[in-house]
Every structure is written in C-alpha cells, then in structure tokens.
C-alpha cells in the first residue's frame, strides 16, 4: 500500500549529555525568559547609576519590595480578588451571549442581515466613552464593572465566532444534512467545532480587552480592584505601587494567554496538532 500515516513532525530535542545544541523550541523558551530578565537588569542598572529619574522610573528592586509589602499586608490580594471576580462574571455575561448570537448569525442569513448593521454601529464606540452612562444605569456597585467587562468581551467574541461559522466549508453542512442531523445536532457537531479556532481567537482578544476595561472602570467608580489600587497610588504619589499594578496586570495577561493556549489545545486538537 502506498498509504502512510503522516505523523505530526516530532520535535527534535537536543541530544542529552554534553551537547550544547538546542532545538528551535528550546531556544524560543530560553529567549522568552531571557529577554525580559535582561531588560529588568538594564533598568535596575540605569536606576542605580542615575541614568534615569527614579521619581518616575523607580528601580525594579524597589518595585518588588513594594510588591512584597502589598502581598504581606494582604492589600494586593484583596484588589486582585475583586478584579478577578468582576472579570469572571463579565466573561460569562459577555462571552456566552456573544457565542450563541455569533453562531446563530453565522448560520442564519436573515439574522445576519438584521444584526450586522447594529454590530457595525455599536462596535466602534469607545468603551471608555460609555463608562459614565454605564455608571448612571448600573450604579457604583459591582454591576457596572461587570457590565463594562461584558461589553468589552462581547464584540471580539461575537465577530470572530460569526466569521468562524461563515468560514466552515459548505460541504460539512451538506454532510450533516445528508446524514439527517437536526438543527441542534448541526449546531453541536458542525457549527461549534468548525468555528472553534476563531472562537478561541475571539476569546483571547476579548480577555485582553476585559483586562483593559476592568482597570479603567475601577479607576473611576470603585473602592477596590487593581485599577483602583493604581488610581489611589497616583493620588498618594506612591509610584512603586503603580508599577506593581502594571506588573500584576501584565502577568495576568501572560497567565491568561498560557491558560487559553492550553484550553485551545484541548478544544481544537485537530488544528494545534499540525
């Protein structure tokens, strides 16, 4: 038989023992850690030798000191927890409707005709511009922050999900029809898995947008959260605390990306295995 299984190309690991040869994957991994570490060292040196103004750019060692203090007295944990809480509920309240509406719009031409202009009109409105309105409608409590996150997540997930369904080759819908799949089965076995690669792209973009908006919303109308912590630090001129906030948000961004990459590998094994 001429048939052969095309196995996914296996990673060529560097030979064990004394070899210094590195595979491309390992080189990437080392560089991923080395480049930020190098930047931090450069920054530290610049602060110590007076090349930069430490009132605006405190040394990383100072920032980490402040960070440990905030961890020890529990402040950081409190703020982190309230931000995460809002992000989580915002993710559910924004993401699930976006997913359902996105797939429905992808499957139904009339629905697309009805909703497309509405999406096109509302999507480009700056989310920061509607914050006052959201505060007015939902008050200063948790709801307004959750709504802000939900709105931010909603659009990237909606638009990507719809694009994902529209990109599924027509033949798969023909197959499901020929094999007597009902509407729900088409949704579950063709539309959802077929759109999953782009849905994951939407979720990644959406989570990033959620992080931006939660910091913003907390600066204006909150008494807790990472955004509030940074705003408060500005008011009391604790520059190090501002940087702690930035670092934590950046770290959250990296963490979410790593988690979502794992989720993607699990949900889209047929694409990521390539």
């Amino acid at each position, binding site marked *: 038989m001429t048939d052969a299984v095309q196995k996914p190309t296996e990673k060529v690991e560097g030979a064990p023992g004394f070899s210094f040869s590195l595979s491309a994957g390992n080189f990437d991994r080392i560089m991923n850690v080395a480049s930020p570490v190098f930047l931090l060292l450069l920054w530290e040196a610049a602060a110590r030798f007076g090349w930069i103004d430490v009132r605006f750019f405190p040394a990383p060692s100072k920032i980490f000191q402040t960070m440990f203090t905030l961890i020890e007295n529990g402040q950081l944990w409190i703020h982190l927890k309230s931000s995460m809480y809002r992000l989580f509920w915002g993710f559910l309240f924004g993401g699930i409707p976006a997913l359902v509406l996105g797939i429905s719009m992808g499957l139904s031409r009339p629905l697309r005709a009805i909703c497309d202009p509405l999406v096109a009109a509302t999507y480009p409105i700056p989310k920061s511009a509607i914050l006052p309105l959201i505060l007015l409608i939902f008050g200063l409590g948790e709801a307004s922050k959750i709504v802000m996150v939900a709105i931010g997540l909603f659009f990237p997930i909606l638009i990507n999900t719809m694009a994902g369904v529209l990109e599924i080759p027509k*033949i798969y819908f023909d197959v499901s029809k020929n094999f*007597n799949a009902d509407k729900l089965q088409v949704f579950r076995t063709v539309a959802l898995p077929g759109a999953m690669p782009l849905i994951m792209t939407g979720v990644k973009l959406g989570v990033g947008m959620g992080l931006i908006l939660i910091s913003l919303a907390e600066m204006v109308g909150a008494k807790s959260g990472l955004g509030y912590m940074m705003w408060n630090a500005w008011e009391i001129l604790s520059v190090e605390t501002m940087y702690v906030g930035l670092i934590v948000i950046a770290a959250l961004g990296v963490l979410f990306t790593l988690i979502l990459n794992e989720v993607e590998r699990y949900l889209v094994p047929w694409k990521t295995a390539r």
Partner: protein
Amino acid sequence: MSTDAAIAAPATAGTDVKIRLRNLTKRFDTKRGPFVALDNLTLDIPTGCFFMIVGPSGCGKTTLLRILAGLETHSSGTVEISKPTDGRPSNSMIFQGDSLFPWMTVWENAAYGLNMRRKPKAEIKDRVGFFLNRTGMSRFADHYPHQLSGGMRQRVSICRAFANDPDILLMDEPFSALDEQNKVLLQEELLKIWEETRKTVLFITHSVDEAVTLGDRIMIMSAHPGRDKATLDVPFERPREVLELRARPEYGEFVYKIWSYLREEVHRARAQDEGSSS
C-alpha cells in the same frame, strides 16, 4: 436520433424499481439567464443495481445526485424513491473530495450517521468497528483526518456511508482525487464490501474504466443540458477482480463502445466551453 436509443434490455417484470425519475428537469437562474442542468431525464434504477452515470464534466451528474440526496430541489418532473419501512435511512452520500469533519477522529467520523440517528452505543460500536476493520482503518480510529492520506480518508468516507446502513448509496466521483494505484485498491475494496450487502448504488464518474469495472448498468449522459444519451448493461459476471477483468479482451471492446458514445459528448462539451469563454 438512433444513437440515443437505449440499448439496455427493459427492466424485467417483477424487478423492483428503487429510484424512478420522470421528466426530471433542473434549471438554475444565473446572471446570464436560466441554465438547464438536467433536461427531461427519465430513468429507472432497479433495487440492488450498481448503477453508473458517466458523462463529461458539467453535464449535471452531480446535480442529479444532490437532488436525490435531498441537498437540492428540482424544477419540474417527478422523483420517486421507495423508502425503507424499517427506519433505516433512505440514502447516504459519499462525497467527492474531502468531506470528513476535520474536528472528528476517524471513529467519530465513521459513527456520524449512527450518532445523528441516536442509535444505541453497542450497535454503533459493532457497526463502526466492523467497517473500519473491513477497510483496514481500525488502527487509525483515533487519528484525525489531516493525519491520513487521501486514500485513507476516502476509506473512512466509505465506512461512514456503509455503517449508516442506508437503502441507497450515492457516490459522487469518490475516487477521482486519488492516484491510479489507490483507485484500483479502493475499487476492489468497494466491490468486496458491496458484494456483502448488494445495496442499490448510484455512482457518478467521468472515468469509463471505473464505470465498466464497477457497474451493472451504465448511463451515458450528454453534455449540458444533461440528458440520457444511452444506457447499457455491463456484460461481466460478479464477483469481479478488477485487474483480471481489465486484462480481458471483451473488457477493452466494451470500454471502446462506451467511449464511442461519450467521445461526441466530450467534444460537444468542449466546444460549448470554448464558445462561452470567447
């Protein structure tokens, strides 16, 4: 015209007719005006017949198959398909090219029809296991389609259709994308599986060799609009051995006969293409 006369013996009395088409016409509305894909096609396909349709590309073969599969509506005429009464599906299609779901494993793909019909787990396991085994694909049950070669993917397509246990199998040039060796292998495998069930098959191809090798009866379709140009019974006994059959002199003679009908149509189709593109 004398060449349009059907040469096939009329279906003997008592033979069930599975698919009965009367004056079937399909028109598409295009920007350039109506396009007639099928013109007044009348056709009987007996139960258990391996029925081949050969024709130049663009003669409406695929349109006919899609109408029978319920993926397309016809413009006029009647389509009668005698449906099974025991709850089995009426037809399953084996598509041209890649039609396996890339997000499902070989097993999940092969089990698709049975899953959609919510069959009991044990039955699905039996049937899917049987056909994967039968086509030598059991070892690859957990693979995804992109990890398989074209020939293996088409084997899984065949499994998916046969496991669904339909009354009629509709095949739309299932082997056209394969290389010559794989084509012969899959034709042999298909014949073996088919011998065990003897389901009604409607198989579309542009390959005369394939039509003569596999079919009981061959309909030659004219270039568009698609019409029945001639219908011939294949004079070779079953079971058939593909290579052994092709070595026989009568095989060559019969292929030549089909070609003589087809040649005119192929030239006509080309003239039409050149006419429309200039």
